[in-house]
């Protein structure tokens, strides 16, 4: 190693009056080395995960508060067993089911399909025995799941927004019948 006191490429250390250099050591910056975070490394939950969860919780609550201030929960007229509203809408999370009920026999749409969905979901880890986790190496299962997911979302949107009186097709921007 070049002598730092004679190396022309180096500036001389600034010395205050009355001080002298005892030695120069190679070292790390006082702030510590900056290393790339290793994603496999273990980190303390307190505080690393907790602070993130706290922020996530605040963000979720902020969304709830904004929605609650802006939009009131619906309340229709009092229940009347002698008059069914037209259209009659299920809660939005059952809109896909209601859409299926308008197409198929209730034993299929109301019993068979929901049972198959729940049993299929629960059995998924026992059906898919492929240990790979990267999407590229489990194309079949990812594609199947995505198709069903998209189908369900489309049915939900149709049942929620595109169905009007007598369950006929409407355009939601023309007449709105969605109920939350």
């Amino acid at each position, binding site marked *: 190693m070049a002598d730092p006191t004679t190396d022309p490429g180096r500036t001389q250390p600034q010395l205050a009056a009355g001080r002298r250099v005892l030695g120069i050591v190679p070292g790390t910056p006082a702030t510590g080395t900056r290393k790339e975070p290793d994603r496999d490394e273990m980190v303390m939950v307190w505080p690393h995960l907790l602070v993130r969860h706290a922020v996530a919780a605040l963000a979720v609550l902020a969304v709830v508060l904004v929605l609650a201030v802006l939009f009131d929960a619906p309340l229709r007229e009092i229940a009347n067993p002698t008059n*069914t509203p037209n259209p009659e809408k299920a809660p939005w999370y059952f809109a896909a089911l209601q859409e299926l009920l308008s197409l198929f026999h209730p034993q299929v749409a109301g019993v068979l399909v929901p049972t198959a969905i729940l049993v299929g979901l629960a059995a998924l880890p026992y059906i898919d025995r492929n240990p790979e986790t990267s999407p590229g190496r489990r194309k079949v299962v990812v594609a199947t799941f995505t198709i069903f997911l998209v189908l369900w979302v489309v049915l939900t949107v149709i049942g929620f927004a595109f169905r*009007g*009186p*007598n369950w*006929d097709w409407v355009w939601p921007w023309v007449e709105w019948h969605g109920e939350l």
Partner: protein
Amino acid sequence: MNEHIDRRAFVSKAWKGGVALIGLAGAWTSWDLLRPRRGPGGGEVRTVAADVVPEGGVVEVTAARAYLTRVGDEIVAISEKCPHLGCRVPFCEQSGQFECPCHGSVFNRLGEYREGPTPRGMDRHPVRIEDGVIFVDTARVEAGPDKGAPETIDEPPAGPSCAGEH
């Protein structure tokens, strides 16, 4: 076999049997508490005079939650409840047919199947006519006519359906 059962096996079997008995008792009690006390409900409802019921139209009897209509001399009481999923089915005057708002099932004036996802035609109640007054027995429900069965009256839709107007 029985003489070989030792104390350990007996205790093990006994407590499992005891737990099973308690579980059974709990299940039976819950069932007994929660099962509906009343029968199918309803009873005979006194409705309108028989000559009020028109040919080609229906009369709604809210007390019985039923419609009355007539074929010739025969009076038919049709339950308002859609055999599909229990919505009240209104009668559409301009088309002369029943149109369910929930899933779009359509029935003719006698509650016979026309279109939609319903598994059968509209259910009926037995009627009795005494001194010209119709009594509807709402406690008894007769399953509606089959989906494939041909319509017994020749009444095609008289006009546009009520869908879209409400």
